[in-house]
């Protein structure tokens, strides 16, 4: 069987490294956890490639990076396709536990409030503040809504008070 030329592995390695760096930069804005995964994978690949090269298993360092990157990326792709790993966009949904809080408020408000919260989460919170802060904002709105309805039911809270959720955006 004919061996794959070294320059092809070098090309694959360089392309994959560029792609991973681009992914780290792109996801660091909104989805930090993906960025962390890519950074960790890049370090693992770099270390393994360096030791493979040192042991003389490959001719050049770029060749080694290419082989290892292709191996790890291929495995990651297979995991995602087979459903073992979560798709990257699956996290971009409102926090489920916070949704449960909203289910506790009176039925006549529930559907509208859930709809409004989901719309604001998708159209305003995530684009403006990023996923992490968007989830905190959703939590804050859900918790405050529950508190508001519970205390309004007890006649202890004057609705419409100005509130400041700025701390959740920090």
């Amino acid at each position, binding site marked *: 069987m004919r061996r794959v030329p070294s320059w092809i592995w070098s090309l694959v390695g360089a392309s994959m490294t560029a792609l991973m760096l681009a992914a780290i930069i792109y996801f660091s804005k909104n989805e930090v956890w993906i960025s962390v995964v890519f950074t960790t994978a890049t370090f693992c690949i770099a270390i393994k490639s360096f030791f493979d090269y040192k042991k003389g298993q490959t001719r050049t360092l770029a060749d080694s990076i290419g082989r290892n990157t292709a191996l790890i990326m291929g495995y990651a792709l297979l995991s995602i396709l087979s459903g073992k790993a979560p798709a990257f966009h699956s996290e971009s949904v409102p926090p489920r536990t916070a949704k449960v809080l909203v289910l506790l408020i009176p039925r006549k*408000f529930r559907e*509208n*409030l859930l*709809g409004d919260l*989901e719309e604001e989460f998708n159209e305003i919170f995530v684009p403006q503040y990023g996923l992490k802060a968007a989830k905190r904002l959703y939590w804050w709105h859900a918790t405050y809504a529950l*508190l*508001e309805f519970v205390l309004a039911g007890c006649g202890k809270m004057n*609705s*419409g008070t100005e*509130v400041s959720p700025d701390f959740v955006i920090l």
Partner: protein
Amino acid sequence: MQSRRNKAKYDPLGEFETLVLMAILRIGPDNAYGVRVHLEIEERAKRRVALGALYTTLDRLERKGFVSSRVGEATEVRGGRAKKYFKVEAHGAAALRHAYQATVEMARGIEPLLGGAS
């Protein structure tokens, strides 16, 4: 005597209730649902408002007969949930006018004490 009759006729509006009624009037009955009212108040009044507070206020205004509501269309971005549109009724508009006039009357003559525009 006239002003006493007015007092008896209209339930006094709180500050936030006034803002909510104004926001609904600004947006118009075809588009005034929770998210739009929320954004209108945040953008124009420059204050953060909790959606829960907005809904309890809208409910109170509806019980007073100041606003009416109708269920609208469901959209995908809302997780398939329907919108609830609000409209200011004549009684609400009159109460808002009364509250506004009261504020204008009270502010008359004290503008210099309030300082410049921020």
